[in-house]
């Protein structure tokens, strides 16, 4: 079945099997391997992408369901060679160890922080319930999201 969608601002079209998951479409058809497959059961959040502006888990969406939509992956966040403020904050605050969950964390965090520059620790922890990290104990992730949220609003 033919599907077309705008991925990171670029129009794409492919002929896919109906059972192809969106995360496989992004990784295997388009070579965008930023969205990781962790649990593959809608729990860990490492496959989080933006579908028509909302954060969703791409392991639980069919590519055919995403036909005609606009998608942003972690590869689409940086603009003109400059990291997105949330990416920069994860770098600055060392919000990762192995990095496997990081693309999903950042994609969830950018939506959590949008219009919300002064997130509390509790709001961040609650807002990232859909993303699991098995390395960091979340401390630096929370610091990174807090700093990233301020940076996204233009603060320091």
């Amino acid at each position, binding site marked *: 079945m033919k599907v077309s969608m705008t991925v990171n601002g670029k129009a794409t079209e492919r002929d896919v099997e109906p059972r192809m998951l969106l995360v*496989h479409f992004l990784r295997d058809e388009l070579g965008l391997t930023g969205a990781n497959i962790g649990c593959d*059961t809608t*729990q860990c959040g490492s496959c989080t992408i933006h579908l028509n502006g909302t*954060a969703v888990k791409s392991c*639980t969406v069919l590519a*055919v369901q995403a036909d005609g939509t606009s998608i942003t992956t972690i590869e689409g966040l940086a603009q003109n060679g400059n990291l997105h403020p949330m990416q920069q904050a994860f770098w600055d605050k060392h919000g990762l160890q192995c990095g496997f969950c990081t693309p999903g964390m950042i994609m969830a965090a950018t939506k959590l922080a949008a219009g919300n520059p002064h997130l509390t620790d509790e709001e961040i922890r609650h807002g990232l319930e859909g993303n699991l990290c098995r390395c960091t104990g979340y401390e630096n992730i929370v610091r990174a999201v807090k700093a990233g949220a301020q940076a996204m609003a233009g603060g320091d």
Partner: protein
Amino acid sequence: MYPPKFDYYRADSVDEAVALMGQHGGKFIAGGHSLLPVMKMRLADPGVLIDIGRIDGLRGITRSGNSFRIGALTTHATVAAYDDRHFPDALKHAAGMIGDPQVRNRGTVGGNVAHADPASDLPTVFLALGATFHIAGANGARSVHAANFFTGLFETALAENEVLTAVEVPAEGIENGSAYAKLFNPASRYAMVGACANITVSLTGECTACSVAVGGLTPKATAAPSVGAALVGKQLTDDNIAAAAALVLNDLGGDVMGDIHASAEYRRQMAPVFVGRALTLAGHRAGWVARLQKNVKDVAGDVLEEIERRLRK
């Protein structure tokens, strides 16, 4: 994990969805957040998926008269963020407790209740609120009350070729309060025990109507009429609530479920606890007029006493 192979059709209207189902059979898919996981685990292999996820008019919440109509394709995130003081608190808050933000952005109210997972939250809430389920099929439209909609483990009153189009819930007035309390599975966020209370309180603080339902520990959302009957006519004191909540054990039936996350016995013990929490919160929300009146009387009494004291001087 790829799901098993299937043929895929997309419906642009409810009529087309019903026609496609009559022609091909299979399963309807909306957000897919219940169906795709079970297909990936090979627990379901419908062979045909009919995508109803883009049908106009099935999305969103509208107020009509004394009730709210929630389109079947409305996401949990939309319900959780819905801002109307007459919208039932229990429903708004339960929707916000489902899964996680990403799941709530994609999962739909209709898909949730049509799937009728015993560990789901919304069936319990809709049962306590006395919701009405609107259904379209080849033989026209019909409506089913919540008491008759959930028929068993993953089973509802929906026939194979019927589409759930909307769920309707009564608006809350100043004398009503509802609440949902949940013992979370810490990993999946599903309910190990979920309790919903829907209470009406008189201006003098007396409970005049009370509907309670539980889920997570029974094969389907289960009404707890013993609890409501024990509270009607009483003040919502801690003692009265605790005594009424304990009666939920009479209504659980013989099939309380347990698994590696929590035994049946543990869930049974927790049922009165979470029913009690839901009752307390719902009573608090319903009873604000009575509380305010009492506060005003108390303050007015103090003021009058003070005036009299000074006049006597």
